């Protein structure tokens, strides 16, 4: 590909950030419009890639390759395949949504939007990099903006939460870096595609392969997050500003799942297979334990954060069930969860914005005063509990279907059925939430609250539209995802 689409997509936000930094602080409107313009442009570009993507070809497309650090053979190597393209589109879409969601920010507007755009670059870079070192670099780039965004524009114990996020992520990154270096020393390259294709497992001892696998896995597990590395998530979500919660739930978590597939499973298919039972069991813990803990949350944001943990369990299950359908489902689940939970956080932000309350027992009957928010919240909630016609169902169904049929993991059928208990639990807390917050008689103190304004309506309804689109015709995405998944499945020796 001659035209450097990916470089432009990745670096356009950062250019926007620089531009915003140069704008006068006194003109927040211009800053917001600049941010919106840049994120929209990036989204449009990624969408055009989505349509130009050739679903007949396996392997990376729109590749850009240049030598970066010749001494260690590190390259500036960008490309997207069926795994990363959906994530890229999701990230650019949510990036745009995040700017819209932040329209009411009035504290240090310039810095806020600049950091938001830098964050977007970091995330996009992760999904586009095919060089491990570059991947790691982008992975780290995202941490600083997150820290600042949470600790400056957050609420509650924001410094604690921001610090917790950073320390958790860095601890994971340290493991991952060790893994990446070991890969480099034993594989001789940072090129992910080459590493995946060289059959590294056979060349090194099982113990070493296992060690590298788990070093990398823990790095991603912190991000996903996998029990017991999940406790940063509720805190970070609860205290982050709305847009950051949207990005955090919508994209950052997906980096973990993406990394697991792209690095762990691709490079170590054998180890993945050996430890699949363990990891699937961990996925079940995530699903059921996450859902169980969700029931006890009183804070709206915290509740949704815990539900994310539960939903990410499906991703883990889908990945380590190691079948094409389940892995496709896992990626679809990441996409779908990004939209659904992003939307839920945006809605919680709206509710909080209007009522200044996030404590569920204090809310009630809001549907009367904010019908649109209530309707969209219900749709998002129903999507989260996997109602057919929404992306949540398509994704969870594929995960379960693929897992059930998987032949590589012992006892996977029992595990899958246990995992399906999660859909009942999810229905429980989601409906309970809707009932407590929106239904019933309206409380007197909320008589004056207003519904979403035009911009907010546009934001949330556009997300609903995508959720429904994927739910009704998931082949839009699965046709692309399966192209990315099939080489990995092939390497599993099926």
């Amino acid at each position: 590909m001659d035209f450097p689409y990916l470089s432009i997509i990745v670096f356009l936000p950062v250019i926007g950030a620089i531009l915003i930094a140069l704008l006068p602080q006194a003109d927040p409107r211009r800053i917001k419009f600049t941010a919106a313009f840049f994120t929209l442009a990036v989204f449009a570009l990624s969408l055009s890639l989505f349509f130009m993507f050739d679903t007949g070809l396996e392997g990376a497309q729109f590749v850009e390759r240049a030598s970066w650090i010749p001494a260690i053979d590190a390259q500036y190597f960008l490309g997207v395949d069926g795994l990363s393209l959906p994530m890229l589109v999701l990230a650019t879409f949510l990036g745009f949504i995040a700017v819209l969601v932040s329209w009411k920010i009035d504290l240090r507007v310039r810095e806020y939007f600049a950091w938001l755009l830098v964050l977007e670059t970091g995330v996009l870079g992760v999904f586009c990099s095919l060089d491990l070192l570059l991947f790691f670099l982008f992975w780290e780039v995202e941490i600083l903006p997150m820290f600042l965004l949470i600790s400056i524009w957050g609420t509650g114990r924001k410094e604690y939460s921001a610090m917790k996020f950073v320390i958790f992520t860095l601890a994971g990154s340290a493991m991952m870096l060790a893994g990446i270096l070991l890969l480099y020393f034993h594989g001789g390259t940072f090129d992910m595609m080459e590493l995946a294709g060289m059959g590294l497992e056979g060349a090194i001892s099982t113990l070493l392969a296992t060690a590298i696998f788990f070093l990398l896995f823990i790095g991603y597990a912190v991000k996903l997050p996998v029990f017991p590395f999940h406790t940063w998530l509720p805190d970070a979500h609860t205290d982050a500003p709305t847009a950051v919660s949207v990005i955090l739930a919508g994209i950052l978590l997906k980096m973990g799942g993406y990394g697991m597939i792209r690095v762990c499973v691709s490079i170590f298919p054998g180890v993945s297979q050996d430890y699949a039972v363990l990891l699937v069991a961990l996925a079940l813990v995530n699903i059921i334990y996450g859902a169980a803990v969700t029931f006890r949350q009183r804070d709206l944001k915290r509740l949704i954060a815990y539900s994310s943990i539960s939903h990410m369990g499906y991703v883990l299950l889908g990945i380590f069930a190691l079948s094409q359908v389940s892995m496709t489902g896992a990626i679809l689940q990441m996409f779908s969860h990004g939209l659904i939970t992003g939307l839920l956080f945006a809605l919680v932000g709206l509710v909080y914005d209007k009522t200044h309350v996030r404590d569920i027992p204090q809310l009630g009957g809001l549907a009367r005063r904010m019908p649109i928010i209530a309707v969209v919240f219900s749709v998002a909630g129903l999507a989260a509990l996997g109602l057919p016609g929404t992306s949540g169902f398509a994704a969870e169904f594929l995960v379960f279907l693929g897992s059930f049929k998987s032949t590589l993991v012992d006892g996977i059928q029992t595990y899958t059925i246990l995992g399906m208990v999660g859909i009942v639990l999810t229905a429980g807390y989601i409906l309970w939430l809707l009932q407590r917050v929106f239904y019933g008689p309206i409380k007197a103190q909320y008589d004056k609250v207003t519904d979403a304004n035009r911009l907010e309506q546009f934001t949330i309804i556009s997300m609903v539209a995508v959720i429904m689109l994927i739910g009704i015709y998931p082949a839009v995405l699965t046709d692309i995802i399966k192209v990315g998944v099939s080489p990995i499945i092939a390497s599993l020796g099926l």
Partner: protein
Amino acid sequence: MPSGVPLAIFLLPFFSFIVISFIIRPFLNSKPQLSGYITTASIGTSLILSLWVLAEVSSAPGHVLSMPDYEWLAIGDTVIRFGVTVDALAAIMLIVVTSVSLLVQVYSQGYMHGDPGYSRYFAFMSLFTAFMLGLVLADNLVSLYVFWEGVGLCSYLLIGFWFHRPAAARAATKAFLVTRIGDFGFLAAILFLYSKTGTFDIGELHHLALAGAIGGTVLTWAAIGIFSGAIGKSAQFPLHTWLPDAMEGPTPVSALIHAATMVAAGIYLVARMFPVFASSLTAVTTVAAIGGFTAIFAATMALVMNDIKRVLAYSTISQLGYMMLGLGVVGIGVANDAIPLEVGLGLGVAVGIFHLFNHAFFKSLLFLGAGSVNHATGTFDIREMGGLRKVMPWTYITFLIGSLSIVGIWPLAGFWSKEGILDHAWDHQTALFFLAMITVFMTAFYMFRVVFLTFAGEYRGSNAGHSGASAHAPSLRESPLVMVAPMGILAILAVISGWLPVSSFLGGESESFFGALAHPIAWVSMVLAALGILLAYALYSAKWLSSESLRRRFAPLHTLFSRKYWIDELYERVIVVRVLVDGIFVLLNWFDTRIVDGIVNGIAGGTIVAGKGIRRLQTGQLQAYGIAIFVGVLAIVACFLIFG
């Protein structure tokens, strides 16, 4: 017939939903009556098309029309195709759904008149009808599951239609959750079957099941999983608790969704998958046992309820139990080889669905009657009614017809299908036959208890200002024509639907009009029914016996029934609240915050404490540092001397 016709049947109500929610609600909210018209028109058209389909199917060989299908999803060798199935079963169900739905929509235009959520109501109703039709037409388990959940969603939305009432909101949540527990099994069964056979297509599954290509254990488990979905949807024991609470929704909703169609989807599902069930004796025995038990179990609770809709709700559960029993006992016959396979498959479906068909008419009639009564009195409590025969003659007559029909009096509709079920129960499962017979007596008693308390005697309602579900101030007069007319039509159907050759069309046997009277079972059941009616008359109309003293004599039993065997308490208070939410979940939450996060914070705290301790080494005394440096140097030198 163009292949688009079945699709159009489904899509018309769906477009009605789209139009109402995206055009009328946002832009034409001042003219909500448009919503009612559009819904009625689209469903009316669907009914006409359904009749066309019925005509086509009846003339097609084997009563099956083949239809094209479309690929929905393909990943590797997993391909999911969506298509429609048009056979006798689907055609009958289409008629049931569209006709009852049409009548209910007409009725609703009167009942819901002036409600602020008028358009929303019709949007949901259209959506429900669309999903229900989709469910009926589905040709594979995935799309069936999709619509299955879709109707559940609409049920949730419509039960919670008056969401500002806490009871309605709670009932909606409960309905969704309880059915979802059943759906869990259903979904598991779908996946299980797929993993064993590699297909979702219902027709192929039938072939494989009948050809013995699926192992016996697999079939049993799959059938039980599917049945658990049916248990949830059709409110069979032990997942029956949601249906009585679902009466919090508007009454026409109860008539359509919670009497005629959606709750019958469970029966439809079992009928649709009948070859799978009939291949496993365990599965069909389970179906029959659950059905038979639920029939009598729900009837006992219906005996003592004072809310007219709740009586009808328990009656619905009981009748659904009958249908399950019918399917189950024929299935037992097939599985025991007492009935030849080729006969049995059609027969089972016919026995179950024929009752479903009749029940749809007379039960929705009864519900509409209850709604009409409520429209006038503003209450559902039969203790506050009475004497309405005089003010609401049409309601009275239609309600009476419905009651006689459900009780199973010759030659009304209920008689024909109930006789079929009882006959086969007698043939294949005698124990369940006796349960069913007792249920006949109970049914007669509780239905006529309602009839006498509501329509006979004197009006007992005291407060005319009691605000009810209807937006109108209650005033004792007959309901408007728009409500009475659908009831009239349904009353006619409740008489004649049993005479239609539905059973033989589905592959079952049919009886001649008078030939049925030759069966002793028919006479026994009618005598039992008459005794039930007589007892109700004696207690509530003629007052020969005091219902009060009867209740006192059977006080423990009465309490047991009226408290619904404490099953709600068991589920909600004990299992959900005590054991889960306030039990295990608290424990896990504690574990999460104290142990998991505690370890994290403990490590952080430990680092801080260690830092504070180690900080003391930094005395700021130069010489101490100097000593440390040289001790280090010495250590290095020592290392060299020893190892180097």
